[in-house]
């Protein structure tokens, strides 16, 4: 789409978790390679869909990019700065530009804080504006995400999953980030609510020029949100490309198996998809 500098460049990212075992003295016996050499780039304004089954390492990749988890190796360049090596102060400042929306609407909001407090926290942390300014901004943000600002003094437990996700989105938007990592943002929601949140995310991207890394296991959801796709398996990326390309002309066997496995709401396709799955499972190594 453009020849501009990518907003985010991930190069050979790795994250290993040591497995400790031992009776009296704990020793590291082996490591689990959650992220095993992942590389991709995202241009400003585009959405990269990161797709994979559970255990593929997609969420860990997201956390590593934001430095919420310290990568074992590899590089993460955001807006030209190398996140793995910059100082704490600089990282803190850069955090204003990269945010995250979590999957679980129940654990992603502090139950002891009001909705208003939750959304204004980013502003407080970075000392933006006066108390009054912040309150105005919070109301503005809640309105933008379709959440009634009059409920800013209520508590999260008073609201449904979909409404809570909206609060999470408002919080992520507070500091006007350039990049938002969406970690399975609709997986915990009912289909009809899912649609509301996905539409909201699309609108926000358009209105605010956001760049998304959209992580999900749901291939259909990812399809509707992404420009580019990366398919992950066991910590590695097995296929990347434009969304249309990967979905319509998948090259890798794993990608084809994944696509064939998705239950599609079209009863006519059932037989042919079943045959396709059977064919692929005979040739696909079980792993």
């Amino acid at each position, binding site marked *: 789409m453009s020849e501009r500098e990518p907003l985010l460049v991930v190069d050979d990212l790795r994250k290993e978790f040591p497995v400790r075992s031992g009776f009296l003295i704990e020793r590291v016996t082996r490591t689990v390679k959650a992220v095993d050499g992942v590389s991709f780039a995202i241009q400003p304004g585009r959405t990269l869909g990161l797709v994979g089954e559970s255990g593929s390492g997609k969420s860990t990749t997201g956390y590593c990019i934001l430095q919420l988890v310290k990568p074992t190796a590899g590089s993460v360049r955001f807006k030209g700065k190398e996140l793995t090596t910059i100082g704490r102060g600089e990282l803190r400042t850069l955090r204003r530009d990269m945010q995250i929306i979590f999957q679980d609407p129940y654990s992603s909001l502090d139950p002891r804080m009001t909705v208003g407090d939750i959304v204004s926290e980013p502003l407080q942390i970075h000392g933006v504006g006066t108390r009054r300014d912040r309150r105005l901004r919070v109301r503005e943000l809640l309105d933008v995400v379709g959440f009634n600002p009059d409920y800013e003094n209520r508590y999260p437990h008073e609201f449904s999953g979909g409404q809570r996700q909206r609060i999470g989105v408002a919080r992520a938007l507070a500091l006007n980030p350039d990049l938002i990592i969406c970690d399975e943002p609709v997986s915990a929601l009912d289909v009809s*609510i899912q*649609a509301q949140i996905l539409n909201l995310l699309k609108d926000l991207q358009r209105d605010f020029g956001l760049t998304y890394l959209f992580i999900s296991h749901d291939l259909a*959801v990812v399809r509707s949100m992404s420009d580019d796709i990366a398919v992950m398996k066991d910590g590695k990326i097995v296929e990347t490309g434009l969304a249309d390309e990967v979905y319509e002309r998948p090259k890798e066997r794993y990608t084809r198996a994944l696509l064939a496995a*998705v239950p599609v709401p079209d*009863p006519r*396709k059932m037989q042919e*998809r079943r045959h396709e*799955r059977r064919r692929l499972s005979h040739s696909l190594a079980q792993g």
Partner: protein
Amino acid sequence: MALLEVKGLKTHFFTREGVVRAVDGVTFSVDAGQAIGIVGESGSGKSVTALSIMGLIPRPPARIVDGSVEFQGRDLTTLSDRQLEDVRGREIAMIFQDPMTSLNPTLKIKTQITEVLDRHFGYSKDEAGRRAVELLEEVRIPNASERLEDYPHRFSGGMRQRVMIAIALACNPKLLIADEPTTALDVTVQAEILDLLEELRRDHEMGLILITHDMGVVAEVADEVAVMYAGQIVEHAPTLELFDHPEHPYTEALLGALPQLEGEDVREGRLLSIPGRPPDLIAPPPGCRFAPRCPYAHLGDGCADNEPELRRIRQNHLVRSRHPASERQREAAPV
């Protein structure tokens, strides 16, 4: 005679805050060898329906307040607990959503399978052991005889679900109820499990009730689909018919809200979303329960006052709405 006939089933929960009308008048039937999918979002009452059939609702606070569940002519709601226990596992089996918690972590797989065989048939140890191996092989678990000696934690989610199916099949039940059996599983594993259920159903001529929120899953597995909303069935039709000609505004909206795997403009387009939320089941709206969210409910057409009946709109196609799709085209276009 149908294998299972549910008529006017009403299961209510009597709580401090009021009476939750979780299932409020559900009627459908299942024949031998037939698969019916019950589809709905959370709070629709689909799981409570399944549990009511099996007599597994927590009593208190829940109670079946009306209706009947006739299995091969016998009304299960009138049976004592003891009699129900004889039916459960033997004639009707159930598998649940979370494979991680539905197996006892302290018992070997072998014990959990043979337990069922012992309870209903009184097999000897050897006979039960042999049957257990057969069952594991039938659900395609490799190295079945060795795996019998393992504990559940040595199995992956998909494998555990297969074990659950094996336990369910142990007594050759006539009816299998599967409550969101694949929701907690990865997509590839999900497909395998669904394919397995299909095969087993055909081989054993079992009736299958599949409860799910996923329209894709019912498209793959079910012969008939019943869509539930706020404790009631709002549409019921053969699968192909439902997807080709959805009648109820909720069904249409549900289908429209699904992100598509293929198609044009998937990236740019917006998904159909249903404004609002499902109603409070303690005080459901008078009249049609979907009316507050329905784009076709106007003032003065009675939608908000009278509850529509489940009526036959076409051969085999039932719908509970005053504005089903095929009648809308004939109405004057709304302003």
